[in-house]
């Protein structure tokens, strides 16, 4: 198990991480979420000893992480790094060998991985001659080529098209099922809510929400009622002050119901106002949970 234990950090007077502590369990894809500037990248850099925290430490398998442990970890930074003129295959072999893999194994592993990521015929190509999407896959390969026990990816989905998001998710889930410990960060909360099993949400360097996604969404007590209603009349909502409108687009209406509100009573009120052709009851999204949690925290402090 990977443990972040009470990590704090500051740049000058500005605190960027405040006593952050959470666990990442092998086989459970974990998301480190939060808006830009929440401290995600700084935390990952601290986990890899790229920068020293003011206090706290990262633990692995019950002891503080050593450089030898980190050689069996893989890291993909947010701003991607590849040698522009070094052929793709050689580059992967080099990164694998830096992690202590011998040349023979590194070569085989690099070949397999390029094949898996659809870059099988790109061994001798320079990265600066590859398309943007291929470069991103090559960067992922560089983080995975030594078959790391711990995989940490900073904003891996940033800038990817939906097909690429799907492919990357598949690759990561395979590693998770194989028992690897995987942590990824994202500021696109709703993009990863169906992918990550567990999440840690940061805001201004503090954890505002953490746990299994399913539990968090179910236990909030909040629901969203989605209605397709053949009427532009919204007067009936005035009788339901606890209900807030999330979205109101032509026929589509999305309502947020606080805990204790009976969704069926709201549905009946809507039906009285006009014909309801479709409806659904949904759990809140991660971004809604985040807004709620961050709002509460802001009020408390």
């Amino acid at each position: 198990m990977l443990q972040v234990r009470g990590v704090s950090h500051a740049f000058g007077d500005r605190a960027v991480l405040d006593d952050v502590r959470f666990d990442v369990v092998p086989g459970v894809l974990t998301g480190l979420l939060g808006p830009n500037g929440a401290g995600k990248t700084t935390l990952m850099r601290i986990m890899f000893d790229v920068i020293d925290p003011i206090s706290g430490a990262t633990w692995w398998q019950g002891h503080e992480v050593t450089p030898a442990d980190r050689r069996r970890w893989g890291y993909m930074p947010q701003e991607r790094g590849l040698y522009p003129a070094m052929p793709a295959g050689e580059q992967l072999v080099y990164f694998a060998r830096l992690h202590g893999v011998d040349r023979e194994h590194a070569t085989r592993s690099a070949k397999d991985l390029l094949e898996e990521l659809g870059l099988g015929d790109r061994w001798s190509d320079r990265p600066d001659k590859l398309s943007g999407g291929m470069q991103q896959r090559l960067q992922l390969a560089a983080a995975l080529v030594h078959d790391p026990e711990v995989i940490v990816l900073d904003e891996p989905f940033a800038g990817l098209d939906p097909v690429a998001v799907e492919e990357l998710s598949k690759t990561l889930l395979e590693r998770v099922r194989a028992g690897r410990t995987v942590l990824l960060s994202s500021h696109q909360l709703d993009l990863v809510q169906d992918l990550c099993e567990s999440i840690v949400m940061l805001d201004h360097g503090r954890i505002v929400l953490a746990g299994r996604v399913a539990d968090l969404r179910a236990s909030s007590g909040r629901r969203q009622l989605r209605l397709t209603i053949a009427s532009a009349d919204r007067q009936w909502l005035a009788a339901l002050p606890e209900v807030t409108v999330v979205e109101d687009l032509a026929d589509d209406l999305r309502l947020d119901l606080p805990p204790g509100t009976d969704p069926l009573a709201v549905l009946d009120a809507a039906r009285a106002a006009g014909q309801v052709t479709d409806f659904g009851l949904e759990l809140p999204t991660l971004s809604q949970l985040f807004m709620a949690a961050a709002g509460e925290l802001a009020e408390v402090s």
Partner: protein
Amino acid sequence: MGAGAWWEGTRMVAGRNLAEGARSRAVRITTLILLVVGLAVVIVPKLLGDDEPTYTLATVGEASAPVRAQLDAASETAEFAVAYLPKGGAQEVELAVREGDATVGLAGSTMFVRTDAPGSFPVLVAQAVVAEQSAAMLLDAGLTPEQLAEVTSLPPPEQVEVGPVQDEGRAGVGFIVGIVLYLAIVISGNVIANNVGIEKSTRIAEVLLAVLRPSQILVGNVLGIGLQTLVQLLVLSVPIIAALTVTDGLDLPSAAAADIALALAWFVLGFFIYAFLFAAAAALVDKVSEVSSVITPVTTFLVVAYLAAIIVVPQDPGSALSVFLSMFPLTSPMAMPVRWSSGTVPEWQLVASMVLAIGAAVLIAWFGSSVYRRALVITGRRLKLREVLPEKG
């Protein structure tokens, strides 16, 4: 981290740099050119040197035996050949010289000399004629042939050279060595700065830092490029050193071989002193296009040091300023090889200057690593040096 593991990672970083150099067309072409230049310095003078000049002496009838003997003996030591052109009379001898068939013509007591004849040959001919005539007169005056031999074998006064033992050929070698060292340090420094800039701006540095210590990345980069440059310098200089030591065919003093070998040692020292400065400066960039501007202070200092070395030192290698330039570690790698080639430097000064340079290289490596380590992880903007200076205490 143990020394073994440290070296293992450092070696891989250096190896990657070497491999990238070997792959680069620019590096391969440069190395080939250096090889061609190195070989050309050895081969071209040989090709030209085989063509020793031939001077022709035109005479009325056959040239006399004593004159021939004197000129042939002189030609062996002075590296030229003598040809003889017998003519029927004085007018024909004069015509042969006028038309360029002969360098010098002899007719009785008259010597015809072409206006463009090389200075030494007419003098040799005149000496030979005078020697022949004076020998005849001495024999006529009653000297025995033994006494005559004694008179002609009188040794000339022994020459003792005074003043500074400057050798122009050797000083010329020192000058060229200075240029090559300066270029090698500037070019390799720029390659290092560029590599550091690429690694930082593309965030490769972050991937590397996750698994390597900053010192491993820095030293690996410096060693890789340093080895590559050293190989190029060896390609250039080994043929020349070999030719100077093994054969005697070059028009250069053999002491120059040792000077060039010493210059390679100076390259290593100068390279380390400046390489870490270049790397530390380049770590301040955010974008790779900023590299040339952040290394400007280092490059400027290097240019000034070099100009001081080649302008001040050759004029007066013994002046106080020359001595200072050849001792101060930031200038000594260029100034001392130039000064050393003047042949006037006491050995203790060479040793002292090298020791100072080694000490400075170690200090600068420490300083450079420290700046590099701090600068590498601050991204998003170009840094100022004072933000990443080593903390006091």
